[in-house]
């Protein structure tokens, strides 16, 4: 697998060890960073990385949630990329950030067979239009059969109707939640409480369904059904229930959200939730299905629900204009996905097959594959953030899976008259990682700082007689380490002046 040169350097690595009081130290594996407003998928919701704390867990590239060990931040000035993926939106990343992707852009489209593309962590620098990002589908499943109605009955409340102490998490309940998230509102001022749903008067079957669902779950009859010429409002009076919905599912359209445990229910049960949601805020015909909401949380959560059901969708963010608030819409146009969705929502449509696959995305091996449509270099000056995640060493932003390797390798340099007088390394990793580190130190020794800055990953691989393709990215970090060490030295020198 390896060339002779690689094995040679593996057998006797040069310049191994550390320099006790080095002039510059470069550590690679953790330089990768995001802009503060980048959204990260946590067990609570998608929140800006600047607000992430170690109390939360984040989604890793394996589709499971992991504990955050550390949040790191540093100031950064220089180039930054905005990588925009077809269906999911864009993220700002520093050029050395590792991103899970398939390198496909160098194949002509017609020869682009998926098996030829290598799945790996690529640095943002290498990615270009046509490469394919791998977005993990949240796969953690935890079944919850019952939840307590955790709102106390007020002390002097003798009039309100009895509610069950525990609510069975069944299709009826989940559909009710779906209706509430899309069409419902609560009033919880003072001691009173109202839970209400507003449907269009055309949606008579949904109105009846909602009434039946609530009767089945809570044993409540609607207190009032108000019909105007184009809307029907169903009201239930219960202070406890209104507070319960407000606590778990949010109050006010902007704050609506799905609780985390509901996001982890088995697929079968989530179908009921999706059904309720789509019947309310959604729209579906035999060409396209659409879901619109003004709640950021809810939009991202619905997106994750669809991913879990392997429904291909596009996610769009629309800025506020006129009377319309900032809103989020989700489109489903793919034939198969549309079929799945119609089954879930429970409508019968004559499907018309499209000739072209509208979305260039697909699902495979637990990942949503989405092509990059633009990589835009920008300049940036400000704080950048990174997370250290337990076990899987990766986390997920709104459009990509990002890697943090932990401290994988360190390079120490001693500088005299702008020349690298001594250089040493330490590395954790496979044969290739050790050989590339050794080769890099070999190349850099005795060079001026300027020359050393020019040593690239490619140079290192070439002088070793080549590396296996899969090793090009994960194991070839030493050049980056060297550059980091030189920058560290320059910064220290600047500070001493």
């Amino acid at each position: 697998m390896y060339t002779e040169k690689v094995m040679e350097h593996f057998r006797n690595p040069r310049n191994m060890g550390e320099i006790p009081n080095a002039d510059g130290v470069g550590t690679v594996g953790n330089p990768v960073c995001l802009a503060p407003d980048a959204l990260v998928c946590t067990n609570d919701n998608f929140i800006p990385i600047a607000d992430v704390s170690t109390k939360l867990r984040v989604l890793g590239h394996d589709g499971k949630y992991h504990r955050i060990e550390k949040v790191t931040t540093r100031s950064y000035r220089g180039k930054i990329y905005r990588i925009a993926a077809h269906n999911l939106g864009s993220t700002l990343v520093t050029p050395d950030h590792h991103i899970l992707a398939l390198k496909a852009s160098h194949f002509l489209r017609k020869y682009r067979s998926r098996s030829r593309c290598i799945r790996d962590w690529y640095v943002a620098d290498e990615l270009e239009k046509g490469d394919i990002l791998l977005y993990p589908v949240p796969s953690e499943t935890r079944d919850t059969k019952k939840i307590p109605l955790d709102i106390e009955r007020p002390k002097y409340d003798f009039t309100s109707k009895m509610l069950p102490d525990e609510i069975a998490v069944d299709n009826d309940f989940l559909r009710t939640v779906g209706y509430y998230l899309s069409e419902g509102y609560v009033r919880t001022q003072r001691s009173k409480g109202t839970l209400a749903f507003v449907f269009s008067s055309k949606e008579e079957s949904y109105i009846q369904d909602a009434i039946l669902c609530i009767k089945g779950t809570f044993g409540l009859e609607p207190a009032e059904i108000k019909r105007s010429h184009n809307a029907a409002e169903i009201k239930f009076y219960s202070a406890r229930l209104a507070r319960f919905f407000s606590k778990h599912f949010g109050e006010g359209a902007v704050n609506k959200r799905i609780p985390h445990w509901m996001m982890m229910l088995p697929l079968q049960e989530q179908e009921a939730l999706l059904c309720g949601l789509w019947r309310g805020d959604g729209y579906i015909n035999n060409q396209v299905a659409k879901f619109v909401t003004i709640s950021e949380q809810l939009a991202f959560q619905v997106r994750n629900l669809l991913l879990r059901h392997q429904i291909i969708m596009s996610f769009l963010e629309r800025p506020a204009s006129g009377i319309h608030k900032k809103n989020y819409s989700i489109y489903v146009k793919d034939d198969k996905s549309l079929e799945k969705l119609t089954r879930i929502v429970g409508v019968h449509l004559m499907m018309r097959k499209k000739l072209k696959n509208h979305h260039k995305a697909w699902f495979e091996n637990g990942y949503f594959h989405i092509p990059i449509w633009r990589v835009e270099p920008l300049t940036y000056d400000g704080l950048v953030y990174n997370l250290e995640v337990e076990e899987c060493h990766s986390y997920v932003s709104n459009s990509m899976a990002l890697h943090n390797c932990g401290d994988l390798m360190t390079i120490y340099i001693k500088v005299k008259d702008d020349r690298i007088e001594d250089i040493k390394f330490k590395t954790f990793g496979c044969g290739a990682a050790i050989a590339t580190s050794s080769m890099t130190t070999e190349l850099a020794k005795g060079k001026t700082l300027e020359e050393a800055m020019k040593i690239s990953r490619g140079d290192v691989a070439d002088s070793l007689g080549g590396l296996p393709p899969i090793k090009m990215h994960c194991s070839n970090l030493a050049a980056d380490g060297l550059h980091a060490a030189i920058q560290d030295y320059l910064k220290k020198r600047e500070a001493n002046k």
Partner: protein
Amino acid sequence: MDHTAGMPVDPRVLEVMQPYFNQYYGNPSSLHSWGNEARKAMEDARAKIVALIGAKKGEEVFFTSGGTESNNLAIKGVAYRNKDRGNHIVTSAIEHISVMNPCKSLVKEGFNVTYVPVDKFGVLDIQSLGKVITDKTILVSVMYANGEIGTVEPIKDIGEIVHRKGALLHVDAVAAVGQVPINVENENIDLMSISSNDMYGPRGVGALYVKTGTRIQPIIQGGGQERGLHSGTENIPAIVGMGKAAEIAKVEMKVESERLSRLRDKLIKGLLEGIPSSFLNGHPTQRLPNNANVRFSYIEGESLILSLDMLGVACSSGSACTSKTLEPSHVLLAIGLKHEEAHGSLLFTLGRQNTKEDVDYVVNALPDIVKRLRAISPLTPKELLS
């Protein structure tokens, strides 16, 4: 010491195979005497396998092209044939990839698959197995022993539960056959995959045991050889070789297993005592006689393999860096190891050629290698270095 990856063909096996390449080249389906000879040789080989696994009669053993095909045939064949009875399949989290992948492809065709977790030693959680089997469950597939961490599963108990719930039990015994005594009748097994190369037979041949009365359908169609379950002209030399390998395994198993177990324990003990921060993966006692899987903190498996290779020792690792994907072994993750722990795992599988001296050699050589790699690694704590 990497016998799981490939075993040499026993010279005695090679000897009996030889004439079947050019001397007795008949097709067992032919009616003439050349055909008869080949047929007789094939049935003879079948009888030897029947004797090894304790099946009732020859009609229960079907030759296939290897362990992978046997697993595919067992899972897909049973699933398709019993579609009318249910669509649920249960398997464990540490199965071989040739069980995992057919299950995954069945999911796409509308079947449900449940993966039962294992404990930290890799033993299947029998209680949760009982819970996940429903009346829709048609097949439970569990391996007899895991080739990677060496843990032997309590197949008899599993079989009892599975049969009480009315499902079928498929056992992937590729890693176990020839190592530990197996009796399909006593251990409640309905289908069992075995491979020839894992008992010093030739590659490219394996067998599937199917208990009489089990509903299964072929996945390869053609001339109806092997009673329709595996069409295609029989690979007589390989089948004869497999028969001979089974015969040898049956005779020598007891002595050889005891010898290997002693070597294995010596190896494990030597490594764990000689190297600080090292741990055993898999069950301490319920394990295959030839399997030693040890993990070392702070270093990476591929570097270990390359270093040992330079000293003339072959072994394998659970590390992601040695595989084609980015993930470390799913087996090591399933027994609860973290990614970085799985990376530092080393797997030794002993075989007939290995001697006490080999084990001593590894036990003496490895501490220095580990020390060297730990000195390079930035993760190693200071107190370990001094």
